[in-house]
């Protein structure tokens, strides 16, 4: 037997444990529950609450299970009279100061203290002196504070120190006066900050927008998936009579662990925004009027059927579900057009034939942590995918050399190995590529791009760290994807990976870029990734030409389309624009001729394929707002109305199953092969080519989530865009 295994006994049962493991990990693993407040498996051991006391044979005092390493032959009793007495004694102390305000506390019903008080508390307190009272502080629009309820477990403090790397909450003063807070009033504003709500075992830190709006036990819990980035964080929606009251994390170790980004948590507010389109509307002679669904759909179908097949344009976003993409792609096929695209953010499609069929990160999300060196190029990763940024930070904390290449400098809350900036992205990457070649020949595709480029010390450091690492990866971000010279950027990044032996991958936009690609929501690729015989028009080309009919599927042309400039004005010039949309906006009123209300992610079922290739299906969790209908159902009817064959699906699952069957076996691939030497980029590499979308502007939902828009982060972003 290995030296690393020790044999212990938990409540009389023989258990094997890893040497050095803390008792509580072992008792948890065998299901011997030990009460705890400060211990959390994602945080360092604090051993301060003293709730997890257990009896250990031959040890006179009860021992904290969270801070007692297992030892050979140890006999542990989690429920012996001695253990229970110790746990009860601690509980009595905690309850001395904790207010008896459970009836007005949002934590009521899901409170670890309340639960344990029932199990371990006394009916009547023997301490009748005054309770400790602490003044509350405003820590921003997301998290409410009732610090009198705080039991000083310091989970929230350790979260800031260890998980985000941005400690803002701390413990000031000492003894009985010790308090958790920010000392000077300030908002706690990291993109993952609101996870402290879930960490807080009592009602000290709570969900501010949700405050007093429902009780835990009245709500139904439904699983869903975040629509805001390529991670697809797993969520639970808590729903009261069809209305989403709040969103909490659904733990999934391989994707989001037990965390979610603040925008995943609060974007649900937009479902009930005043901007919701409540019923179909049509524009006649410049004036809008409501119409019924039947008439609206018939009109849309008529426009499509009567349009010249080369003059039909179908534009979606990377938030399109697999099912919606499949239906849209079949409608395009039926109408005989290849003018279909979801790449609303991509400006440089010149090398699209070399795009991967099934784009991916290049490793699994969890594997990011296992790399020794990572180069992230063209990315504001904390805004693009907060969970990926978190994984990068974990890698850095574990000792990985994480470097960035960006013309702008973004703040990272860990030790960055090298931050290449001060020049355009092409120039920065060319320097690294030259350094990586180290005098040897460069791949032919980039020789011209690297002509005359010399590598600086920093370029060499980055190249060396990638080359010397056991496991390295080069990741392109969304800024790279939106870059006007994406072809050059990608070729250089791929060259660096090739020269250093690193893997190559990237963050994609939205929750379902991969799914949209596979579904054929592309002008040059049919379903499954096969090249079309004749490529259709990409987004920019569609907008540049006169179309008979344009269908926008959940696109906000002013905010989502970066592939072309003046998208709103160009759409307004088109003959007829049908917009499927949950929201109405000035831009849509200007650009569109027919508005069809669709449901948000919460009101529809569907599937997203995330950046590591995980397919995640979800059901609708909320009742539809107004007359909104799930997009896939709108497309199904539209398909029927234009006489597309086989549109007799009953559920979205039918759509998905058909697609999956058609797709067959397919796995992610990021293999890139250039078709030839890429021309020197002239003047197209200015910093203005970086399109960075702020954290709380990424999509229509986030842009309308009240609490998120009140954050300092959102206000800063607005000040930048206004000023």
């Amino acid at each position: 037997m290995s030296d690393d295994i020790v044999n212990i006994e938990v409540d009389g049962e023989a258990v094997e444990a890893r040497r050095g493991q803390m008792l509580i990990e072992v008792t948890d693993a065998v299901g011997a529950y030990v009460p705890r407040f400060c211990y959390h498996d994602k945080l360092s051991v604090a051993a301060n609450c003293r709730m997890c006391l257990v009896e250990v044979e031959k040890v006179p005092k009860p021992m904290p299970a969270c801070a007692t390493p297992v030892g050979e032959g140890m006999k542990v009793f989690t429920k012996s009279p001695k253990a229970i007495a110790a746990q009860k004694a601690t509980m009595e102390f905690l309850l001395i100061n904790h207010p008896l305000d459970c009836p007005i506390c949002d934590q009521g019903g899901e409170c670890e203290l309340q639960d344990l008080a029932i199990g371990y508390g006394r009916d009547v307190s023997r301490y009748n002196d005054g309770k400790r009272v602490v003044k509350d502080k405003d820590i921003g629009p997301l998290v409410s504070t009732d610090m009198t309820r705080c039991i000083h477990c310091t989970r929230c403090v350790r979260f800031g120190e260890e998980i985000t790397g941005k400690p803002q909450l701390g413990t000031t003063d000492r003894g009985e006066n010790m308090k958790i807070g920010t000392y000077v009033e300030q908002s706690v504003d990291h993109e993952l900050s609101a996870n402290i709500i879930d960490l807080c075992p009592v009602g000290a830190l709570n969900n501010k927008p949700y405050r007093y709006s429902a009780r835990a036990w009245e709500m139904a819990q439904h699983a869903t998936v975040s629509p805001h980035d390529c991670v697809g964080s797993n969520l639970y929606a808590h729903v009261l009579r069809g209305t989403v009251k709040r969103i909490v994390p659904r733990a999934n170790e391989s994707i989001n662990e037990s965390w979610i980004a603040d925008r995943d948590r609060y974007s649900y507010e937009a479902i009930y925004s005043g901007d919701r389109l409540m019923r179909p509307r049509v524009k006649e002679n410049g004036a809008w009027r409501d119409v019924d669904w039947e008439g609206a759909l018939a009109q849309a179908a008529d426009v499509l059927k009567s349009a010249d097949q080369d003059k039909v344009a179908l534009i979606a976003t990377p938030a399109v579900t697999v099912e919606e993409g499949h239906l849209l792609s079949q409608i395009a096929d039926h109408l005989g057009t290849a003018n279909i695209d979801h790449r609303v953010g991509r400006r440089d499609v010149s090398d699209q034939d070399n795009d991967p069929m099934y784009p991916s990160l290049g490793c699994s999300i969890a594997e990011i942590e296992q790399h020794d060196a990572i180069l992230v190029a063209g990315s504001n990763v904390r805004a693009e995918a907060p969970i990926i940024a978190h994984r990068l930070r974990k890698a850095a904390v574990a000792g990985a050399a994480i470097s960035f290449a960006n013309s702008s400098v973004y703040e990272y809350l860990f030790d960055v190995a090298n931050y290449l900036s001060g020049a355009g992205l092409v120039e920065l990457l060319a320097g690294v590529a030259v350094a990586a070649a180290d005098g040897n020949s460069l791949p032919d595709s980039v020789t011209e791009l690297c002509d005359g480029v010399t590598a600086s010390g920093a370029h060499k450091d980055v190249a060396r760290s990638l080359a010397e690492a056991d496991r390295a990866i080069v990741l392109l971000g969304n800024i790279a994807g939106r870059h006007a010279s994406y072809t050059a950027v990608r070729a250089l990044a791929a060259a660096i990976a090739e020269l250093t032996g690193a893997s190559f991958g990237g963050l994609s936009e939205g929750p379902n870029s991969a799914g949209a690609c596979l579904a054929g929501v592309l002008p040059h690729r049919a379903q499954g990734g096969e090249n079309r015989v004749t490529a259709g028009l990409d987004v920019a080309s569609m907008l540049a030409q006169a179309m008979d009919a344009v269908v926008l599927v959940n696109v906000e042309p002013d905010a989502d389309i970066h592939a072309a400039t003046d998208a709103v004005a160009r759409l307004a010039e088109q003959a007829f624009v049908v917009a499927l949309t949950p929201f109405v906006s000035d831009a849509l009123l200007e650009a569109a001729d027919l508005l069809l209300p669709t449901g948000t992610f919460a009101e529809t079922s569907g599937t997203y394929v995330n950046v590591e290739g995980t397919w995640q299906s979800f059901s609708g969790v909320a009742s539809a707002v107004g007359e909104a209908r799930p997009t896939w159902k709108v497309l199904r009817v539209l398909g029927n109305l234009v006489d597309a064959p086989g549109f007799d699906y009953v559920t979205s699952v039918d759509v998905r199953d058909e697609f999956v069957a058609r797709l067959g076996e397919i796995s992610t691939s990021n293999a890139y092969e250039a078709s030839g030497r890429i021309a020197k980029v002239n003047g197209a590499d200015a910093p203005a080519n970086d399109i960075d979308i702020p954290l709380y502007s990424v999509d229509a939902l986030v842009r309308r989530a009240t609490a998120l828009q009140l954050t300092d982060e959102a206000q800063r972003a607005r000040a930048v865009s206004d000023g």
Partner: protein
Amino acid sequence: MSYVLSGHVRDEIEHWKARFPEGRQRSAVISALHAIQHENHGYVTAEQMNAVAEYLDLPTIQVYEVATFYSMFQTEEVGRHNVAICTNISCMLRGADDIVEHVESKLGITTGESTGDGRIYLKKEEECLAACCGAPMMMVDHKYHENLTTDQVDEILDGLD
């Protein structure tokens, strides 16, 4: 407007930083606060703590935590002379309570407060000051005075400007 650390304080921080390993500049926080408090007549402000945090490249909360934890740091304005009467056991057994009472009534403040003219801060002393054989004792601006009588206390306090 943010507070600018004086040259002296910066020198002091650099001096202490150099005594700890590279990257362990956080160890200089206590010394930095001592230096600022000394310069700032006995207390430190939030702006000053922010300046220390910025200088040492630390999150501000880490400086706040330290400043509020240790009893030698004051985070509210106090009188310019620091008077601490030891009330721990040996002194208590030899009449420290009478000395405290005398001083409180003489100055018209209670322990933990400063005189209205900003002259004296009567610090609450908690730990033993280790002058037990000379009890009762007090420390005035870092100087020990032992075997105190109320007359001596008067003389010492009256001598403070």
